[in-house]
């Protein structure tokens, strides 16, 4: 057996050896179809989408539509701003100065904007002007203006969802005012501006300031039958910083309203997201203290009460006392602590009621209460709800009860 073992194998090798130059020739002749060097790609770091006024039509060239009958679509014009990384401007390594003005973020990126009838149309218009191929593999931030969001994001969602390069971990946010201005912002903390936008939210998650709401998660929530999506609602402030203003509430793909910044805290409290990141004033005995939530726990249960869904929110918080406004309170006294807890409980309840009330009036079930119904009572769901539209209507009438337990655990380094 050993004697003839190598023989057939040798045959294979010979054939393979013969095939190799052939393959190589084939490869060289056909070329390397997909090879695009990293520096030949226009790396898109951020995209902003605004509604454009009708007169912007003049700016647009017919790149994707030529003959009258074949488009342009009836939809309104949008203005897409794209933040491109400028290779060579961002120095390799942690060097401070580096090449050409690494300190000025505005010089590390290049913001271009175009108009079009849809996202792809606009991007095709842009590609027509650019030498390098647009590459979305590093797209981290998509900013949509409030006007656009209120108009509806179906087209935008579809484009980015379909594009295989776009990551599900990118952020999509709704800006108050013009979205393009966020692309042009030049915050000082990061070398690349759009990375700053991203870091704001990513760090927000770690500090307990914002729930996880990557674009992928937003898409998942949006497609669920008993839940609506939400996006961060942001604003560019005068220091070129980004302020997280609240949650932009959606119904289907349309933004219907926005919460206050503390609405984020309420949402996170209802969801039991950790760590806690918000502080609040608490009124006690005529004066005020500030407490900081360190740990949240929450449990949502659901039951059918009189043939209607009824929700029970049970929450527990752990707090740290952070600040007193004056010396009137004696923290050493356990009753004072209890009073602070009681007072904050009442406040929190009010906040939550306000939050749920707002979302009910907007018909936007961001908490995904409908999902509880669908998951826990499929029979009821199939009989009475079934579609998303019907749940949106039902959501406005649901009833709930809130149970809050607050515990102050620490008071800092000061004894009283």
């Amino acid at each position, binding site marked *: *057996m050993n004697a003839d*073992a190598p023989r*057939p194998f040798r045959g294979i090798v010979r054939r393979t050896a013969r095939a190799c130059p052939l393959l190589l020739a084939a490869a060289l002749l056909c070329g390397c*179809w997909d090879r695009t060097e990293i520096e030949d790609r226009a790396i898109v770091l951020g995209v902003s989408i605004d509604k454009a006024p009708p007169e912007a039509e003049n700016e647009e060239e017919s790149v994707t539509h030529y003959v009258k009958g074949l488009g342009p679509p009836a939809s309104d014009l949008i203005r897409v701003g794209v933040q491109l990384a400028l290779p060579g401007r961002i120095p390799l390594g942690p060097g401070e100065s580096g090449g050409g003005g690494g300190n000025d973020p505005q010089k590390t990126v290049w913001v271009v904007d175009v108009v079009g009838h849809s996202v792809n149309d606009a991007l095709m218009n842009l590609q027509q002007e650019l030498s390098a191929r647009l590459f979305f593999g590093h797209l981290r931030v998509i900013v949509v203006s409030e006007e656009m969001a209120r108009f509806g994001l179906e087209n935008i969602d579809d484009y980015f969802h379909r594009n*295989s390069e776009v990551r599900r*971990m990118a952020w999509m946010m709704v800006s108050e005012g013009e979205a393009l201005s966020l692309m042009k912002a030049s915050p000082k903390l990061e070398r690349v501006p759009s990375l700053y936008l991203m870091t704001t939210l990513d760090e927000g998650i770690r500090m307990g300031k914002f729930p996880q709401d990557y674009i992928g*998660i937003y898409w*998942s929530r949006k497609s669920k039958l008993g839940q609506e999506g939400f996006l961060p609602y942001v604003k560019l402030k005068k220091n070129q910083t980004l302020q997280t203003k609240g949650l932009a509430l959606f119904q289907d793909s349309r933004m219907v309203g926005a919460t206050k910044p503390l609405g984020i805290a309420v949402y996170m409290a209802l969801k039991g997201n950790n760590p806690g990141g918000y502080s609040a004033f608490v009124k006690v005995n005529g004066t005020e203290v500030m407490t900081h939530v360190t740990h949240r726990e929450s449990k949502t249960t659901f039951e059918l009460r009189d043939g209607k869904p009824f929700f029970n929110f049970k929450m527990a918080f752990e707090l740290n006392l952070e600040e007193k406004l004056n010396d009137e309170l004696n923290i050493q006294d356990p009753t004072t602590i209890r009073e602070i807890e009681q007072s904050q409980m009442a406040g929190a309840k009010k906040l939550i009621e306000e939050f749920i009330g707002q979302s009910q009036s907007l018909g936007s079930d961001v908490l995904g209460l409908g999902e509880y119904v669908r*998951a826990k009572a*499929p029979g009821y769901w199939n009989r009475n709800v079934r579609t998303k539209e019907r749940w949106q209507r039902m959501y406005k009438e649901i009833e709930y009860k809130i149970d809050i337990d607050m515990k102050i655990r620490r008071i800092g380094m000061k004894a009283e």
Partner: protein
Amino acid sequence: MTKATRDVTATQASAVLVSTIIGVGVLPLPLFAVRAADTGGPLVTLLGSVCALIGLLFVAALGMRFPDQSIIQYSERLIGKWPARAIGACLIVFFALLTSLTAREFGEVVVTSVLKQTPVEVTVIVMLMLAAISARNTMSTFAYIHFFYVPLLLVPVLLIVALSLKNAELLNLQPFWGNKPEGMLQGILTIAALFQGSFVMTIVIPAMRRPAKALSVSLYSILIAGGLYVVIVIAVVGVFGAQETRKLLWPTLELAKATSLPANVLERLDGAFLAVWVTAVFTTLLSSYYLTSQSLKQLLRLEEPRIFTFFLLPFVFVLAMVPANIVKMYEAVLNVGKVGLALTTVYPGLLLVIAWVRKKRGSAHER
């Protein structure tokens, strides 16, 4: 080199089955499962695996009755020469089709998500050639190859599942039987069809050291492969929710995309996952290719199987290029899979009944 070598151990045989079953089908699997019964996807997958297990057990039981022969050979003794040959030819055509569709499916995945400008023909032919070259090996090397790659199939999937489970919500998986379980039966068959590569068992048994272990081999391999399938569906549906999964062509790949390694070593895993997945597809292709060429050799009673490996290549390639687009291709995958169920489950079942009724068995193995 000789036919008589029986050196495939039970572990290796299980590895062959596991790596054959786990292939390109994993990528759209959650979509099929969720289409059948939205949140009931994991249940559908579980039932599908059980269904596949039954078919495989038929094959294994037949193999134990005829430990020296493959289905092409013993079917002739059971139902007569010409009917057996006709069905044998159908089987060969079916596995040639399965090979081509697997190659095409993966080619489409690659071309859609990574190599966008590369013609799909190139990716398909590269995969097929890889399988054809490796299909020239002996049975023991064939078993070695499968055995070697099993960790490469299990580890990346389990890693992605483990990393993404922290984002999963139990609510997405409830109710466990699904809100609309009407499509359940259809879905079970679709999922069971994804296991059809396990039919390779019929040529593995004659090379097994102890064919008597075929039953437990089948059981364990379905347990591992089916378990992995269920875990994947649970992770995908748990993370995305049933409705979002419906919108994704390859939800498993999307799950890889939504996952990043801790400390940002790799920011997204889809490219890497797809690269590693080449091995999974390769082992599946290798099995069906090997099965096709070996069966053809047995049907035509030829001694030298190696000629066939390259002889088959153009046919399989042309078959792979038939579907016009990705939608047509998936239609073909689903239809071929259902027809295949009759061939790979019902046919062995019938044979088993006939063998049982006519009290036929193969020559008892020496050991």
